[in-house]
């Protein structure tokens, strides 16, 4: 054998060694055993530990099949990940998804319609809070079961209120009370602000505005979801409040979207936030804070940010198994254990009746009592239509223009209304 031919075979081996891992990586995903249900979630910290604990408990007692919890990357990308996985034919059986993604999930034939399953007597569907049930639906179908619910409440720094001699917020606070307090709590020379608003034009900007809009008695779209309805007296009132606070009182810290607001709150430079349970755990232990429901106009409406578990059709046996797991996982006792571990809110009414709720959960997370009570102020949900991301972007620009004083409330609303109607008409 010549020297050249030896090197030829060496090269073949070299190429095989290089390419083989690629091939193996490419095929690895599909070789899951039929008796293991894959469950994609996107949490890292306490939640991940709690989820994995629940899954381990289930696997220890359930003989028929196993569940495997897989960290699939940040939940912000859950929809993109699921779509990519479906395109590649490697979808999980259960996938954690934001409530705002439901309309887009409705377009995917692989997402299982759970409308009939949730009505099974053992599941007790009506026990879930109305806000979380609403957020599982799109096009009249139930496309997921509730995974998490939170809502916006008023979180305030007690020390700053004491210093400024302003009484703490009450559940009866009106917009006027709120605006006046924010103004008193603002001290430009000390760079101290009454309130903070996330001003990057994203959904973070929009959902706080939706709470204001609902409080004033308005709504985003007409009831049949075919036209924008926010260019209304209620919409004008909400925009005007933002315009006046930002441009006359200068009482709002405008966060550029880098989430500095929480650091600034921790430094005692912001008196009030409209935020949810997820920020509570990041407040420094030295900061004495209180939680109150949002101020009101016509109502004290708030907005929920509910997330869901979708089931993906990978054969009827796997769907049944996934359903069996989720029914167990979302039972009142099991979910309360999860809530106690993480500080997440209960999702079922009956969880709040269990002894551990008062004895353990509320003792560990006293601030959560207000957030749980506030669930009753969640009366509306964002419309689950495919055009929502675009409408949200249109409205986000309008709110931003008003906060920066670049457009009057009236101009901003008109402009956003035109764009939103065009986006709905385009059927995106």
């Amino acid at each position, binding site marked *: 054998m010549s020297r050249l031919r030896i090197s030829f075979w060496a090269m073949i081996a070299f190429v095989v060694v290089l390419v083989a891992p690629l091939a193996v990586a490419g095929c690895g995903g599909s070789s899951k055993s039929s008796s293991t249900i894959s469950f994609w979630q996107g949490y890292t910290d306490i939640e991940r530990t709690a989820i994995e604990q629940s899954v381990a408990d289930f696997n220890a007692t359930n003989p028929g099949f196993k569940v495997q919890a897989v960290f699939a990357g940040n939940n912000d990308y859950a929809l993109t990940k699921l779509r990519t996985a479906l395109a590649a034919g490697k979808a999980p059986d259960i996938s954690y998804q934001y409530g705002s993604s439901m309309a887009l999930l409705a377009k995917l034939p692989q997402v299982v319609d759970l409308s009939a399953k949730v009505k099974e007597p053992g599941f007790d569907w009506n026990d879930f809070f109305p806000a979380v049930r609403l957020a599982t639906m799109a096009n009249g179908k139930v496309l997921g079961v509730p995974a998490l619910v939170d809502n916006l409440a008023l979180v305030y720094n007690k020390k700053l209120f004491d210093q400024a001699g302003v009484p703490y917020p009450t559940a009866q606070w009106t917009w006027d009370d709120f605006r006046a307090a924010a103004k008193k709590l603002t001290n430009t020379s000390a760079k101290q602000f009454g309130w903070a608003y996330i001003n990057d034009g994203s959904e973070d900007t929009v959902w706080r505005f939706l709470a204001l809009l609902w409080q004033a008695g308005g709504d985003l779209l007409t009831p049949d979801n075919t036209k924008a309805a926010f260019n209304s007296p209620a919409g004008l009132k909400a925009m005007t409040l933002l315009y006046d606070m930002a441009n006359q009182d200068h009482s709002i810290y405008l966060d550029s979207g880098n989430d500095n607001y929480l650091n600034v709150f921790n430094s005692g430079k912001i008196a009030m936030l409209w935020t949810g349970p997820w920020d509570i755990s990041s407040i420094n232990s030295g900061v004495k804070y209180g939680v109150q429901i949002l101020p009101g106009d016509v109502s004290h409406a708030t907005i929920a940010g509910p997330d869901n578990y979708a089931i993906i059709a990978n054969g009827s046996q796997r769907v049944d198994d996934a359903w069996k797991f989720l029914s167990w996982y979302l039972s009142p006792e099991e979910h309360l254990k999860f809530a106690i571990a993480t500080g997440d809110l209960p999702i079922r009414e009956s969880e709040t009746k269990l002894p551990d709720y008062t004895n353990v959960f509320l003792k560990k997370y006293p601030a959560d009592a207000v957030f749980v009570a506030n669930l009753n102020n969640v009366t509306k949900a964002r419309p689950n239509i495919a055009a929502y991301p675009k409408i949200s*972007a249109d409205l986000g620009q309008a709110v931003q223009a008003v906060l920066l004083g670049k457009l009057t409330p009236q101009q901003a609303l008109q402009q956003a209304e035109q764009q939103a109607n065009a986006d709905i008409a385009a059927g995106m």
Partner: protein
Amino acid sequence: MTSAENERGGRGGLGRASFWDRLFASDHVAGWLFVSPAVVLIGLFGAAPIVWSLIISFQRNSLDTSGVWIGLANYRHLMHDPAFAASVRRTIVYTVLFVPITLFSAMAVAVALNRRLHGMRFYRTAVFAPVVTSTVATAIMFSWLLDPYFGIINLFLNKLGGPSQGFFQDPSQALYCIVLVTVWGWLGFAVVIYLAALQGIPRELLEAAEIDGATRWRAFWRVQFPLLGPTTLFLVVWLSINALQEFDEIYVITHGGPLASTTVVVYYLFQQAFAFFDAGYATAIAYVVFLGILALTVVQLLLGRKLVHYRS
């Protein structure tokens, strides 16, 4: 002659070698095998997506369901989309500022660093450090420095009696702040290229200029600057290609805002693809950007051929 060539010549001459023997012995096959790992990888992750995205750009496609063929509709929509036109304008403003500022400051810094000085290694390292710093870290650092309320830059401005600026939160300033951040990030790269070029210029040329009575300034403009021509051309092309695709800092700091004032064309593309899941439209934008970059590069190279002095 190598032994391999000997062997091949010998065999071919006798005419006994089989097809496989000849194939195995051919330099072509050996060559392709050597590059095959790279070819496979680039083909799989480079060429295939390029072709695939061209196909998607002719479809209404949301990435998950199979697309619907709509011909040139995405491209037609693009021609009448004011938001796209605005993003192109911003990209041009950004590029027109970013490329010359980076070039001239890099040239100045490179000339300053091109001498024997105590601690020169430290200075060179310092200038290059931003290049190897992640763009995300750079972006976060600048978003703090330029924070309108608590940033150190406004603190200095106030100390000097000036008013606070909005920087990234002011729609009329944000794009210029992005230029600043990216110039800072790219400067070191251009400096290193210029330094290498400066060190390639023979000393005798500068000495000759000196003997002829040229001042240092004149010697730079008449001797060094023309000899840096090919390097400058390379940097103009390279920086322009990157400037037209600016994304990272905008994604991290401004999210395209405030009021879309930093929504450059690639950020707009990203929004279409991953906020609105309109992959067809996004890939159409990508192809227009690609053609734009291609055209600009060709023009730059043609102009360069006329303007740039190459040493023979």
